[in-house]
């Protein structure tokens, strides 16, 4: 009878450890413990102790990724790109340590992709338990408005932080400012570049000056010549996540939304932009890739293109093709009626979560580094990670004036900062990516022969349906 009782208890213990073991980093240890538990009854006391230890260890590991304890001099931050924004954060930590507080520690936890951070917020917000969040998260600009609207309790504002907001580009701040309240500190700069292979342009009989400030009509004419002479496309984009529409519209100073409502069918500029994209795709000026990896790996790195238009974070991708060093140069975007176009796409900012117990320290850290246009931070961020600032003050630094060999020694960083100041502020929406996706669908259908106007109408009604507007 006793034996039976003991075995029942052990089965119970197994069940409990199996359940608690799920999803924790200490699973292996727990599993081992469970095995031992099953082996002999005598060792059970010992095993229980081990289980307790394992559970404690699990608790510790989870703690490390979450926010720091109250009153400590450490902050935890989540970011996702070891080649891009993590070096920028390391630079900021060094800067703060050297110039403000030598005992400060920044614990950077690498996430595999930006959506991991978004999913973590979704999870925390849905369960109402924010305790797994770190002090600061890096968050994508186009998503933040939606997440502040959906999970208002997940964030801390930057009210009271000593930051000179006028130093940043107004367009960049328009993402992280919600109802006039600042939520985030900009890290990088999403200014769009139009990069050309100057050698291929010359082969077709054109120069970079011909392209700067040209009309899309002229662009198509050049694109056809380039494809004929060299077999390369003058423009490329991911067809499913078509950012061209947004950037081309922004260069015209227009948005897909008016007062929070999709504005497609009445928007002549949007229709013009869409029909230009369809025309370019049909005339082999534009290569629309099937998805993102097709865009980066096949189109750009597979050397299929003579031009790339996207946020400047695409530069490291272009630079992967070392054979083409010195053949690229950048300029502003074409526009419908001619004149230089400026736009931005993508980028991210740093946000303090509601789980931070050291809000004051987090604010001070952000204000003294990224928020102050600190040269020490931004120079190292640029040299180590290629992160370009949108702070006007930091952009004046010498590092920005240097020519870049890959881009024919053009001082592209200074050029990007300068272009960034000209990007027009257009209306942002929680439904940015939904709009992108319905319009991308319309364009693909139109390329395959459907009527563009009808497709745009359908796209608008699909988006309104998703937003719940009738």
């Amino acid at each position, binding site marked *: 009878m006793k034996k039976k009782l003991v075995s*029942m208890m052990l*089965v119970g213990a*197994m*069940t409990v450890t*199996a*359940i608690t073991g799920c999803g924790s980093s200490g699973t292996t240890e727990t599993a081992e413990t469970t095995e031992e538990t099953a082996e002999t009854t005598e060792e059970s006391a010992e095993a229980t102790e081990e289980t307790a230890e394992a559970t404690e260890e699990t608790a510790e590991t989870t703690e490390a990724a979450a926010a720091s304890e109250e009153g400590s001099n450490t902050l935890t931050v989540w970011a996702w790109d070891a080649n891009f924004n993590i070096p920028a954060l390391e630079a900021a930590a060094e800067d703060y340590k050297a110039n403000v507080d030598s005992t400060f520690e920044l614990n950077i936890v690498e996430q595999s992709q930006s*959506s991991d951070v*978004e*999913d973590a917020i*979704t999870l925390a*917000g*849905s369960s*109402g338990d924010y305790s797994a969040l770190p002090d600061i998260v890096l968050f994508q600009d186009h*998503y933040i408005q*939606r*997440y502040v*609207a*959906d*999970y*208002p*309790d*997940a964030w801390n504002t930057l009210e009271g932080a000593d930051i000179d907001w006028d130093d940043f580009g107004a367009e960049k701040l328009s993402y992280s400012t919600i109802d006039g309240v600042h939520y985030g500190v900009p890290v990088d700069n999403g200014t769009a570049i139009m990069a050309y292979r100057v050698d291929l342009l010359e082969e077709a009989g054109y120069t970079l000056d011909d392209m700067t400030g040209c009309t899309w009509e002229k662009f198509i004419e050049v694109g056809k010549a380039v494809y004929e002479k060299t077999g390369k496309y003058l423009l490329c984009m991911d*067809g*499913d996540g078509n950012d061209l529409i947004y950037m081309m519209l922004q260069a015209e100073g227009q948005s897909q939304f008016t007062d929070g409502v999709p504005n497609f069918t009445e928007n002549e500029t949007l229709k013009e932009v869409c029909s230009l994209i369809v025309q370019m795709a049909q005339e082999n000026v534009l290569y*629309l890739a*099937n*998805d993102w990896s*097709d865009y980066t790996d*096949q189109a750009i790195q*597979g050397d299929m293109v003579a031009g790339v238009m996207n946020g400047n974070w695409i530069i490291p991708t272009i630079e992967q093709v070392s054979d083409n060093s010195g053949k690229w140069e950048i300029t502003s975007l074409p526009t419908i009626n001619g004149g230089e176009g400026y736009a931005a796409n993508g980028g991210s900012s740093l946000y303090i979560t509601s789980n931070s117990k050291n809000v004051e320290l987090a604010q001070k850290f952000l204000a003294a580094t990224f928020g102050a246009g600190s040269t020490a931070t931004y120079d190292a961020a640029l040299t180590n990670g290629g992160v370009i600032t949108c702070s006007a003050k930091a952009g004046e630094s010498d590092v920005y004036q240097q020519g870049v060999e890959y881009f024919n020694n053009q001082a592209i960083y200074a050029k990007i900062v300068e272009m960034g100041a000209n990007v027009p502020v257009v209306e942002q929406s929680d439904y940015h*990516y*939904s709009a992108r*996706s319905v319009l*991308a*669908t*319309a364009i*693909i*259908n139109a390329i*395959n022969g459907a009527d563009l106007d009808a497709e745009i109408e*359908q796209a608008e009604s*699909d988006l309104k*349906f998703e937003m719940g507007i009738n």
Partner: protein
Amino acid sequence: MDNKHKNSVRAKQDRAGWYFLTPATLLIAIMSFYPIIQALLTSFKTGSSAAMTWAEPITFNYARMFQDRRFMTAVGNTFLYLIVQVPIMLILAILLAQLLNNKDVKFRGLFRTCIFLPCATSLVSYSLIFKSLFATQGLINTILVNLGILKENFNFLGTPWSARMIIIIALVWRWTGYNMVFYLAGLQGIEYSVYEAAKIDGANGWKTFWHITVPLLRPTIIMTFIMSINGTLQLFDESVNLTSGGPANSTITMSHYIYNNSFGQGVANFGYASAMSFFVFILVAILAAINLKVGDKRD
């Protein structure tokens, strides 16, 4: 009497059986049944997942999905896969099983292993391999262009009809061997003497197959049908990894659309996503029930 029954050997064995079942039952209840009930409740709610409220009217999410043009596209795509792919795959599987059940075939074991092998690959990796095979600059294009069948590289995954076709080819490649194994197992259960008797009666190969193999394999066929219907209705990996649902949503499946509504595109519309999941659940249940009814020839 009661007391006597309690202490009988039989009763003791019964009780022991329940003790053994308890841990598994508890785990299933906690891990599966509880979430299912929670999901049902969620499907009647709406709003941001931080502050979900009961929908007004309560069936809002269920009514909404029938007006959702993109969800209906996803349902259409899924049924297309179901109607085209499942019969092709099962017929191939049963023919292969019949072939490889023949004792005179040399290297039977090798062939069986080769045909089953695709099942050992992970869904994501085989999707990615198919994707690179059929890429615009991929192997298939290179071969077809060099053979002179195509004039220039064709964008297989960027054209709606060919993208759907590739998903079907991929599914057939991945799952035929899996179903073949069930048929092979079923064939082991058929006495060889039955075939001998048929031979003596003068039945040819086709007749033997149609009048002996198929009827005797009926339970296995029904099982594979139900499993394939269930699997196809919940198709996810191929849509996400091979085509990303594109071009223009022409290959998106129901599960992929449900995922997009909960995590995929930065939105967390859990209420609506749960409602759509229950729609899939009901579809699977109905189709399985029809299948059982049609397949059951007992009096």
